[in-house]
């Protein structure tokens, strides 16, 4: 039963990921990416991580993708037109690199399968919100606080970058305008 669900959601994730790369219009790519996020959230529930699944849907499929779709619509992005590719030799390189990456990962997979793995059980309390909160505010308090500083830097940086007038100081911008 769980194996069937895994195959269903895994196939959904891979199909949406392929659609993300294959689509020419960024808006369709964004919708495919939301499909990937939702199927990954389902896989997280199967892995007994309901909190991470909820955060995945709220933060990724909600906040981040709304931002991306907003920018796509703000900039009025057109479809990629067919034109002569200047870096056409990179396409076989990309395929070759993907092959190398798959080979590396297959090696790791074989190593993992040969090592001893503890069996999973759905009754463990690892994924519940309480255990995550306890660990986050005791053992991992410093990374948590550093993350908040990172978010503050991101807010200031995004405002500086996207401000009209760009990186020019406001004094010079006022002189020009």
């Amino acid at each position, binding site marked *: 039963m*769980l*194996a069937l669900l*895994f195959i269903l959601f895994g196939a959904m*994730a891979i199909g949406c990921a392929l659609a*993300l*790369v294959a689509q020419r219009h*960024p808006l369709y*790519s*964004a919708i495919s990416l939301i499909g*990937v996020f939702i199927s*990954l959230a389902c*896989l*997280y529930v199967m*892995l007994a*991580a309901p909190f*991470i699944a909820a*955060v995945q849907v709220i*933060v990724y499929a909600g*906040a*981040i993708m709304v931002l*991306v779709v907003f*920018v*796509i619509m*703000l*900039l009025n*992005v057109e479809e*990629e037109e067919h034109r002569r590719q*200047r*870096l056409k030799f*990179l*396409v076989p*390189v*990309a*395929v070759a690199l*993907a092959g190398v*990456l798959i080979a590396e*990962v*297959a090696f*790791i*997979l074989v190593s*993992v*399968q040969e090592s001893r*793995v*503890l069996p*999973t059980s759905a009754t463990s309390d*690892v*994924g519940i919100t309480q255990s*995550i909160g306890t660990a*986050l505010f005791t053992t*991992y308090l410093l*990374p948590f606080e550093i*993350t908040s500083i990172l*978010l503050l830097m*991101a807010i200031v*940086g*995004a*405002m500086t*970058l*996207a401000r009209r007038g*760009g990186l020019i100081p406001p004094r010079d911008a006022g002189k020009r305008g």
Partner: protein
Amino acid sequence: MEPQLSWYLALSAVLFTIGVTGVIIKRNIIAMFMCIELMLNAVNLTFVAFASFFHDVTGQLFVFIVMTVAAAEAAVGLGIIIAIFRNRETLDVDEASILKL
């Protein structure tokens, strides 16, 4: 039959590879940005799978922090995209190959 740890790792590897291929072959900067998000998610799947199979909450905390970094990256990255579009009137990365504005 229960899904094994290696199944999740294989799925994560496939998703990561698709993301890498997308970053290399796409020319639209927003599409490349979304492929990077896909790669981050593939790594998150690995973290959650290991956390679940080893009964350790640390992996899920890593996922939490990776999500925060992804949100910060989205805000700053989209700010950079808007700045590039304002200066060049295009989102083609081949047109933005010079660092000078």
